[in-house]
């Protein structure tokens, strides 16, 4: 199994989002919606921070 940085981040975000959604919401529909929302936020903020750091990478 080869995990590049983006895949690693998405896997991390997906697993943590699932666990947090299970704790924070009660019904399955609410949990699924919240997990997707958290996943999108994790990935968007991660990619956003990566672009912000890009000018300093060289």
């Amino acid at each position, binding site marked *: *199994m080869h*995990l590049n*940085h983006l895949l*690693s981040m998405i*896997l*991390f975000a997906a*697993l*943590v989002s*699932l*666990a*947090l959604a*299970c*704790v924070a919401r*009660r019904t*399955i529909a609410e949990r699924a919606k919240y997990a997707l929302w958290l996943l999108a936020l994790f990935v968007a903020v991660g990619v956003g921070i990566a672009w912000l750091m890009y000018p300093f990478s060289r």
Partner: protein
Amino acid sequence: MTGQISETGLKTKFNATLPFPVAIAAWIVPGLGHALLRCWPKALVFFLAAAGLAIAGCELRGEVFSWHSGGAFGSLGFIADAGSGICYFAARILEAGGPDISRAAGDYGTRFIAAAGIVNLLGVLDAYGMASGRRN
């Protein structure tokens, strides 16, 4: 006690004795606490999340901190890692090749393994709350 114990009364008495064993079971095997409470979806999610993070962390050759890790960072790392219970010991065995934190992926792996422990500790608290009747 009047001799007539209602179903609710029995449940309260039963739950009052369970939280600590449930919390310990939840710590040792991720999801086991919820499985004992017959909350299968949560049990599955916490097991998948903790085990998945720990396995991915080992695959990325992250560092698994031991009890003897020096410094505050090492001690905090050990507490976070040990939170995943059996996954911690599995990670210790799986990382027989040793960590490789010379690459960014190895550093990611270290965070994955720590996150597995933190996620499981969250599960422990949730299972404890459910067993004591404070959470649904």
